[in-house]
């Protein structure tokens, strides 16, 4: 995207919050806001995917436009007069954040979301204790990852990553309608029965922890997940010659999950099943990575499914 923008050379001049801003032709209002260092909240937006503008938290006010417009997808036009901090914008952002936080478990969403809620004065509690939510039991159907849709804000990113924007597998789609809309396989069949190839690219793009490594899910349940004890080591995947960068998230000398940097030329953050999940051999013979690290023998019996397959290679 950015390469294409630079190739053109023409710029668009507009006003944002009273300031003159110039951006490359084709840039979105979000890019313009970021260029002007105007903080703009986003939830369904990710640099590596086409904007779907479903969450509406990035809405801004454009003079002459009856409704607010999503900054993430609306191209900047010459002479546009944009307000990102008007009462209408602040109100809509507050409402969107309240609507989400009152219906979805946001506990694993990025910390910045909680900052925005404070900034915009969101008070999800005011919808009452019985406000309908998407709460439901997590889908634990295999040893690789868990789908906990009580944390799903329907940002569509996993569907994009599973489909034409990365994996072209199409194992999941949005099904149903309205508040019943949900991410689903056909007829809600289990992942092993679906077209899923376990690339895990849906996990890589999920902003709220609805899609989560089984290792992380188990460790969080056991209370052993501790990011302050984790380090990230960048390496190159050894399985084939493509050269995907891997970020190994390591806690207590054990790999607990694998990601890939969004800005990596080869992967754009996407991997295959081997790079994403095929690291057990690295620590074959070591203790259970999902168990309490200091005393693995005392790990309580897991009630949430079988532990990861980690037969020793020997």
């Amino acid at each position, binding site marked *: 995207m950015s390469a294409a923008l630079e190739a053109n050379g023409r710029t668009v001049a507009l006003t944002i919050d009273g300031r003159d801003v110039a951006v490359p032709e084709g840039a979105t209002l979000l890019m313009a806001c970021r260029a002007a260092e105007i903080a703009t909240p986003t939830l369904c937006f990710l640099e590596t995917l086409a904007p779907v503008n479903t969450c*509406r938290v990035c809405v801004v006010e454009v003079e002459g436009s009856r409704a607010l417009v999503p900054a993430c997808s*609306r191209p900047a036009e010459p002479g546009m007069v944009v307000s990102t901090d008007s009462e209408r914008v602040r109100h809509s952002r507050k*409402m969107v954040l309240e609507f989400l936080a*009152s219906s979805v478990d946001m506990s694993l969403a990025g910390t910045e979301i909680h900052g925005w809620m404070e900034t915009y004065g969101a008070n999800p509690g005011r919808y009452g204790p019985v406000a309908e939510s998407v709460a439901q039991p997590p889908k634990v159907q295999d040893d690789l990852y868990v789908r906990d849709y009580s944390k799903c804000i329907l940002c569509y990113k996993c569907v994009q990553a599973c489909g034409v924007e990365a994996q072209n597998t199409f194992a999941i789609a949005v099904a149903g*309608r309205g508040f019943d809309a949900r991410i689903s396989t056909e007829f809600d069949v289990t992942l092993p*029965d679906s077209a899923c190839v376990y690339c895990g690219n849906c996990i890589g793009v999920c902003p709220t922890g609805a899609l989560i490594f089984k290792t992380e899910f188990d460790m969080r349940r056991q209370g052993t997940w501790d990011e302050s004890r984790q380090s990230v080591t960048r390496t190159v995947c050894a399985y084939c010659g493509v050269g995907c960068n891997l970020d190994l998230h390591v806690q207590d000398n054990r790999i607990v999950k694998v990601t890939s940097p969004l800005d990596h030329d080869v992967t754009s953050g996407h991997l295959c099943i081997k790079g994403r999940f095929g690291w057990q051999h690295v620590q074959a013979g070591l203790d259970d990575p999902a168990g309490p690290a200091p005393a693995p023998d005392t790990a309580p019996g897991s009630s949430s499914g079988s532990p990861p397959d980690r037969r020793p290679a020997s």
Partner: protein
Amino acid sequence: MAAAPGAAEREAVDAFLASLAEPAGEMPPPRHLLLPALHALVDAIGWVSEGGLNHVCERFGIPPAEAYGVASFYALLPTEPRAPVVIHACDDIVCRMAGAHRVAAVLEEVLGPAGGTDAVTWLPSPCVGACDRAPAAFVQRSNAENATVDSLAPGLPVERLLADLAGREGTDLALPLRSGSVRIPQVEDGAQGLRLLRRIGRVDPASLDDYQAAGGYDALRRAIDLGPAGVIREVTDSRLMGRGGAAFPAGRKWSAVASAPARPHFLICNADESEPGTFKDRALMEEDPFALIEAMTIAGFATGCEKSYLYVRGEYPVATARLDHAIRECRHQGLLGANVMGAGFDFDIEIRRGGGAYICGEETALFNSIEGFRGEPRNKPPFPTDRGLFGKPTVVNNVETLVNVLDIVLEGGPAFATLGTEGSTGTKLFCVSGSVTRPGLYEVTFGTTLRQLLDLAGGVTSGRRMKAVLLGGAAGTFVTPERLDLPLTFEATREAGAALGSGVVVVFDDTVDLADILLRIAAFFRHESCGQCVPCRVGTVRQEEALERLVAGGNEAALLEEIARGMGDASICGLGHTAGLAVRSALGLGLIGNGGPR
């Protein structure tokens, strides 16, 4: 593991694909035939079964998860087993005033709980577009032997429907083709001066000869003489505004598409009439189908479209059958297809059935629905005249808008513009229902006051006092009796903070529980939200919850106002933008929520 299709499932899908004008051979059929294929499956076996869906996916080369996402979007395409005969019993605004609850009780007693899987079941339904005969229902019927659309019955009075069911147990419920199913009191009274309704009751809707003998196709002949630019000039001069609810100038839309360099151009007639309280387009389609086809042909000629889609509400089987018949007749007579009327242009119409989703009346959702995707609205811009159906310049017009074009072409735009007011030219169809003596469809010149319209309908039901009028349907606003001298024009209603919308006029008398009506409106929007954007998906739920608390005496007016604002400002499309209007207007007028405890 993937369920294998049974013989009936295979047969339904394969027969549909073989029946196409260009039958699908070895190659997968285009994606835009997905919704018709799913309809064929449901027509045959009553639901979108796992095996059936898998067979569709195999033929189309579509991933099952995607096709399931599409099917599960539509109320008339159940993804769970359902009885082969389903009575969709309307319990929306007008029908609930007319005893929908009693109807539901009878249905439950006769057929058991809603949504059963035995021979016949029933389901509560949003408005089925038969408010003139409330309480109404529409019957969805399927079986492998008789799976055509005319095996579905239209909005019938439920009593009669139940009698039919009791007597003949789910046998042929179809109406005879010629029966008038919409109440049009002006036609019954032989009123003079009707324009849009003038052929109704006088011209056989099944006879092209009859239509032509009554002056049909004079307008197309005149249009061909005028040429495309001449037609657009007349439509522009007429100052015809769209009748679907948005009131956009038709001439501007047409000239934008006509001059768009990208090809091909598409024309869509938006006949997905689903705004609660609306039944005007159904009347035109059922009783005067050739007029719509002629008008579409003129629109296609003027804007350079060879291909058009007529997207008819899934709940309108009689309209669909009559239009289908009329299109065949026109093709047969050289009035559709290649070289129309020998005038050197090609134009044809393909009917598409909606799947039971109000949102598909939103034009960009309609594009996605036709293309075989979930009916989720798209962002605007780009606008449809620029990038619409299949990404090409597209004209989308409402049925009533199009039918106006016939007279505009015949008498000239300036003459048409002398009717009505400066900002609202011509006549308008109004769907008058609720507590009036003669509910039904009325045609009046723009500028007629609300009082005059209600007088035409015989005034408020005898012995009752008017409490309020809902203008524009569920997405509309209330008007109180002090405002009855409001002229029915786009400009006057806009000034009054209301809107004509699709021409809905529902009258509530002093015995009506408006809180109950508003709760139904809130439930309607919650049910019909596509779910794509947060403000509408969650906002419609929060609105319903807060309204329930308010009705129970809670102090929720301020919160409701905030929810309405949030939906109105931040939603993607018109559904979200208007989902809070009725509640907001009722609160503003003090029709609900005043004087409650706490």
